[in-house]
């Protein structure tokens, strides 16, 4: 029994080393963000000794543009989350419970949408938004995300799993389809709403390509695009510490949200991938 026990301990040791490797880059960035730019320019080894300062964070707050980007990200992410939840719940109920002409075919077409990558539609989508003069608005950043078929797929599955007897009893009481949906069934889908909502929020918050090409006006940048715009001149920058403070500032809120809602986030991400 000694050999397996030893191999088990080696495996655990390896995993611990891996965990340290996961954290070291983050701690490195945190350390640099606490050093003054001048000191870093002179000697990066000073990370390990010398004075730490919150000056970079003070500059960041004074600068203010980061708050504008955070506000944009919040508006877009919350808007997209609300939209996806509403559209997916309605459509999920329709596909799972109601009869209408072409229902089966439409559902298959929507499922096919799961296989369409962003790259296949983004050029024409960008053209359409140009023609409609919608670029550089919050609506333009929200709208494409509302079409993601994953939510419809998830909600349809979820509504199907709810016993039909519930609706049938209510139908006998002459309740309308919408009342059944709204009063009876929707409250039962809250776990699925949480999963879908968290997943949508996270993907909207971290979305990069579409905001990069749609929001070209600095005022309309989301946080992701804003942070990207500041690192374009990474090699020449004289404000390494400032850049790092920005990275910490951008990463921290989502990390805190992650630590608070870890269980749901992991569930949502895994669920979306393994659909």
């Amino acid at each position, binding site marked *: 029994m000694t050999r397996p026990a030893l191999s088990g301990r080696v495996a655990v040791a390896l995993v611990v080393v891996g965990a340290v490797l996961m954290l070291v880059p983050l701690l490195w960035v945190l350390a*640099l963000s606490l050093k003054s730019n001048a000191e870093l320019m002179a000697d990066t080894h000073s990370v390990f000794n010398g004075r730490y300062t919150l000056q970079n964070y003070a500059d960041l707050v004074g600068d203010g543009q980061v708050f504008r980007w955070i506000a944009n990200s919040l508006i877009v992410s919350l808007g997209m989350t609300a939209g996806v939840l509403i559209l997916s719940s309605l459509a999920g109920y329709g596909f799972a419970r109601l009869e209408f002409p072409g229902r089966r075919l439409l559902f298959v077409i929507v499922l096919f949408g799961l296989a369409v990558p962003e790259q296949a539609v983004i050029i024409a989508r960008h053209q359409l938004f140009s023609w409609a003069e919608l670029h550089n608005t919050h609506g333009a950043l929200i709208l494409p995300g509302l079409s993601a078929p994953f939510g419809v797929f998830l909600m349809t599955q979820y509504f199907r799993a709810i016993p039909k007897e519930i609706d049938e009893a209510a139908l006998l009481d002459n309740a309308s389809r919408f009342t059944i949906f709204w009063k009876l069934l929707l409250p039962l889908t809250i776990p699925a709403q949480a999963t879908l909502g968290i997943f949508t929020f996270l993907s909207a918050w971290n979305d*990069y390509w579409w905001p990069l090409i749609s929001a070209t006006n600095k005022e309309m940048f989301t946080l992701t695009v804003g942070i990207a715009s500041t690192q374009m001149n990474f090699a020449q920058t004289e404000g390494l510490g400032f850049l790092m403070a920005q990275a910490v500032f951008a990463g921290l809120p989502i990390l805190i949200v992650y630590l608070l809602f870890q269980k749901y986030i992991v569930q949502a991400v895994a669920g979306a991938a393994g659909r």
Partner: protein
Amino acid sequence: MAIDAPARARRRPAGWANALFVLPYLIVFVAMIVVPLAMGMWLSTTKSDLFGVEAQVGFANFTRLARDPIFLETVWNTFYFVLLTVPALTLIGLGLALVLNRPARWASVLRTIFFVSTVLSVTVVTLVWQLVFTPDGGLIAVAAEALGGSPVAFLNDQDLAMPAIAVTTIWWCIGLPMVLFLAALQQVPRDLYEAARLDNASRWKTLTRITLPSIRRTFLLVVIIEIILQFQLFGQPQLMTRGGPNNATRPIVLFIYETGWRQWELGYAAAAAQVLFAMILIAAMAQYFVASRKDDR
């Protein structure tokens, strides 16, 4: 389902009203996916720029792609990147799941740590890793100097830039394969392990005879999901190397982006997008096929 014909006919009007529930989504779906998809296919057969379609060129864009050395290089780069990342992500993810699939507190802390990078955006991730790789006081450079080595400019080296981006990506994405494997391990029936224990099977035997065969389907799914995800590589090279040095890190998606939004050759970019779409579609079909075989784990 056993509704007789007259009853069904009487329900017709209500049937159309029922469609109102799916209508809002379908409108967005058509406007944001169906129309752009069709329009993209049509664009790929045209010569188009910012101001509109100049000419119908049939399949000329595709024959041009087949002969474009830069495009072919991006295809190769993309496959190379997938080869660097997908096996590593799958095997490391599996290893982590096997070690961390236990109720202990420390295991839960480690699971949290390995998933933490997944929630970061690509721009934060690339910022962090540029600071790890940069020869001017980057983490690796500082560590190398402390050990008597000399700093290496990973991102400016034609042979090292793509592996560096792969390492960044593995760090960023390792959480997903780990949790997919963890979920699968939770599904393995307990009585199988019970039986193995009664048979005095070694840990190694339990692993190779029970655990691994039980999660075969998940293994395949993780590989396919990661192929689809990593095939769409874009932000990391766009932000860390801009496709350089000498095109060594330019993947297909970056080619589409630059052709479309730097050179404004929309028709040509759309054609490249169709090629990528076809490749991803094949992988997605494979995923659907594997995922729908539910009975066979």
